[in-house]
C-alpha cells in the first residue's frame, strides 16, 4: 500500500563521497525518495527522537545505517534504536562495505532488518538502492505508512 508520497529515508553515513554516490544512485534509479543524511550515530539518534536541531524533522520510514562511523559505531546505534520502544519499529537496513560474518551476525542479533554489503561499482549500487526502495516502499508495508493511510 503506497501513499504516493516519497519514502523518507535516513542515511547515516559519514563519508561525503559515499553520500553523494548514494544520492546519484537513487537519482539513476529514479526512486521516489526523500533523503535525509546525518554523519554520525549521535546525530542519527537525535534526529530519530526529534531532539536538538532536528526538532522539526519528520520521522523517517527507513534507516540506512553504515557500520564504520566516527564515534559510536553503527552496531551501537542499531542496538540503541532497537532497544528504544519508540524507535524500534523503524526498519533499519545495514549498508556497509563489510562482508565480515561477525558483522552480519551481530547486526541480526541486534534486530537489524537486513544486512547489505555495498556493491563494488556504481551499477551495483544503483541496482541495490533501487531494490531497497522498491521492496520497502512497494512490496512491504512500512509501519509508518499505516498511520498515513
Amino acid at each position: 500500500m503506497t501513499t504516493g508520497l516519497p519514502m523518507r529515508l535516513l542515511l547515516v553515513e559519514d563519508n561525503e563521497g559515499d553520500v553523494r554516490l548514494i544520492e546519484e544512485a537513487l537519482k539513476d534509479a529514479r526512486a521516489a525518495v526523500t533523503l535525509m543524511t546525518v554523519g554520525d550515530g549521535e546525530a542519527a539518534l537525535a534526529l530519530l527522537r526529534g531532539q536538538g536541531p532536528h526538532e522539526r524533522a519528520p520521522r523517517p520510514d527507513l534507516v540506512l545505517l553504515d557500520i564504520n562511523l566516527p564515534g559510536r559505531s553503527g552496531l551501537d546505534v542499531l542496538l540503541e534504536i532497537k532497544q528504544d520502544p519508540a524507535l524500534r519499529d523503524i526498519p533499519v537496513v545495514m549498508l556497509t562495505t563489510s562482508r565480515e560474518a561477525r558483522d552480519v551476525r551481530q547486526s541480526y542479533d541486534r534486530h537489524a532488518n537486513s544486512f547489505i554489503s555495498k556493491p563494488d561499482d556504481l551499477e551495483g549500487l544503483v541496482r541495490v538502492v533501487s531494490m531497497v526502495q522498491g521492496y520497502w516502499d512497494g512490496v512491504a508495508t512500512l509501519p509508518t505508512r499505516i498511520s498515513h493511510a
Partner: protein
Amino acid sequence: MRLWAKLTAALLPLVVVCASAAWAFSYRTAAGALRAQARQRVESMSIQGSGPVFTAALERRDRAALLSRLEVMTAAGAAHAQALTPDGTVLADTRGGASGRVADAALAQALRGGPTVLREAGGDLLEATRAARRGGKTVGALRLTLSEAPALEAARAAALRLMALISAVAAAFVAVLVPLLMRLLRPLAELRRAVEDLTPDSPAQAVPVRGRDEIGRLAEAFNKMSARLAETSVSREFLESVLEAAPEPMIVADIEGRIVFVNGKVSELLGYEPGELRGQAVEVLVPDASRVRHAGLRAGYLRDPKARPMGAGLDLKARRKDGSEVPVEISLSPARTRQGVRVIAAVRDVTEQRRTREALRQSVIALQRSNEALEQFAFIASHDLQEPLRKVSSYCQLLERRYADRLDQDGKDFIRYAVDGAARMRALITDLLTYSRLGRQETPWEAVDLGGVCRRALDALQPAIHEASARVEVGFLPTVRGRETALAQALQNLVGNALKFRSERPLEVSIDALARDGEWLVSVRDNGIGIEPKHRERVFDVFERLHPQARYPGTGIGLAIVKRVVEQHGGRVWVEDTPGGGSTFRFTLPVKEDA
C-alpha cells in the same frame, strides 16, 4: 689357641706322666730285682761263710780265725760280718770290738734251725743270719749285713736312663710333630685368611689346593664357592668406579632414602665435599618447597620400583648446599642387592636446555604475535583499501554515465583504463583478503568429504568449464579432516587454474586420490600448457605470475592460496608434468584416523 699349641699342650703332660710312670715302674722293677739279687747273694754268702771252716773255728771259739773268715766276707762285698755264739755273744765282728751280745728274733729264728733269716736292718742294710751246725748241733750263727744302696742306686740310674730316653723320644716326637702339624695347618691358615677377606662385595682369590686330603678338599670347595660368588656378584669397588666414571651425577640411596653413594659429579654440581652426603637423607637435595611431597613420592616409588624418569612432565630442581637451585632431569632405577633395594638416580643438569627451551618458547610466542599482527594488518589493509577503491571505480563510472556525450574518445579511453585499473586492484585486494583470511581461520576442523567438496567447486566453475569445453573427470576422493570452505577453495583454484592455462587441444581435467605412505595423495591433472621445471616452485608464491595479464588474466594468488590451505591441513603441494603434456598438481593430506 692354635691347634698345634693345643696339641702340644695336650701331649706334654702325657709325656710327663708317661715318663714318670716309666721311671717309677722301672725303678721298682730294677730295685726289686736288685734286692732279690742282694738277698740271694747275702744268702749264698751266708751259706758259704757258715761252712765247715767257719763252724770249726766257731766251735773252737777261735776268734782270730773267725775274724779272718769274716774279713773274707767283707772283702766279697758284705758291709760287715759277725760271728755269734748260740746265746748271742759276739765272738768276732769286722767292725771291731768283739764284745756284747745279740738277742733278737732273727737270731732266735735262725738258731731254731732252717735256712738263712733275712731282715731289713734299716739304713739300706740287709741283714742275713744263719745258724752254723756241726753234726746236728748248732754251734753258733753267722750274721752278715749287706748294703742295698748300690743296688738301689743302680736301679735309680737305670730308671733315670729310661726316663731320659722317653723324654728324648718325646722331645724328638714334638720336634717332628709340631712343624709337621704347622705344615699341615698352613692351608687352613690360608683358607682362614681367604675367608676373612671374603665380603659379599668382593669374592676372594682362589686358595692353593695342596693334596687331596680333607683340607685340600675344603680348599677346593672354597674355591668353587668363591668362583660362584664372583659370577653372581660384582664388587662394590667395581660398581662405585663405574658410577664414578659416569659423565653425569649419580646418587644411590637405600630404601630409607639415605644416601649410600654419590659420585664426584654430584659434589661438583651441588657444591658438597666428597663423602659429605653419604648417610644423609636424599631430601637434602630437594628444594624446600617440594621436600615433603618428595618423601611421599619416594614411598610411592618404592611400592612399584622400576626404571623411569622422575617427575615426568615437571620442571625438577635440585638444591645446592648453599640453598640455590639447579634445574635437573632425573631418571630412577631400582637395584636389588643383598643389603636391600637401592635406588640409583642419574641426574642431569638441564640449565642450558631449559634456558634454550625458554628462549625458543619466547621466539615462538614473538613469531606467533608477529604473524598474527601481519595477518591482522593484511586483513585490515585489504579491507580498508576496498573502500577508496570502490569510490574511484564508482565515480569513474559516474563520469562515464553522465559525461559520455561531452567526452572525446581519449577521455572515454582514460576513464576505461581507470575503471580497469580499479577493477584489477579490487581483484588483487579480494584475493589478498581471501589469503589473509586463511590465516585467521577459527572454524573447527570436521570430517570433510572431498568428493562433495569437489562437486561444489565444479558447480561454481560450471560457466568456465562450459566456456573452455573441458571434460572433467572425478575419480575416488576420500573423506579427510579439515575446513570445508578452505579445501573447496583449494580444489576450485586448482581446477580453475587448469581451465585458464589450457592449450590448443581439447582440455581434459581429472581429479582423483589414492592412499600412499600413510597419507592421501590428491592429483589434479590437465593437458594444458604445462609449467617449465624452473618455475615449479615459484608458481606457489603470492602474486607470482608467469604469463602476461592480457593472455591469462588473474592475480597470481590462486596457487598461493592452495599451498596455504594444504599446509594448514598438514600436507605438501607440488607440480609435475602430465605425461603427454600438461601439469599435474599433487597435494597430500593426512589420513583421517577414524575414517
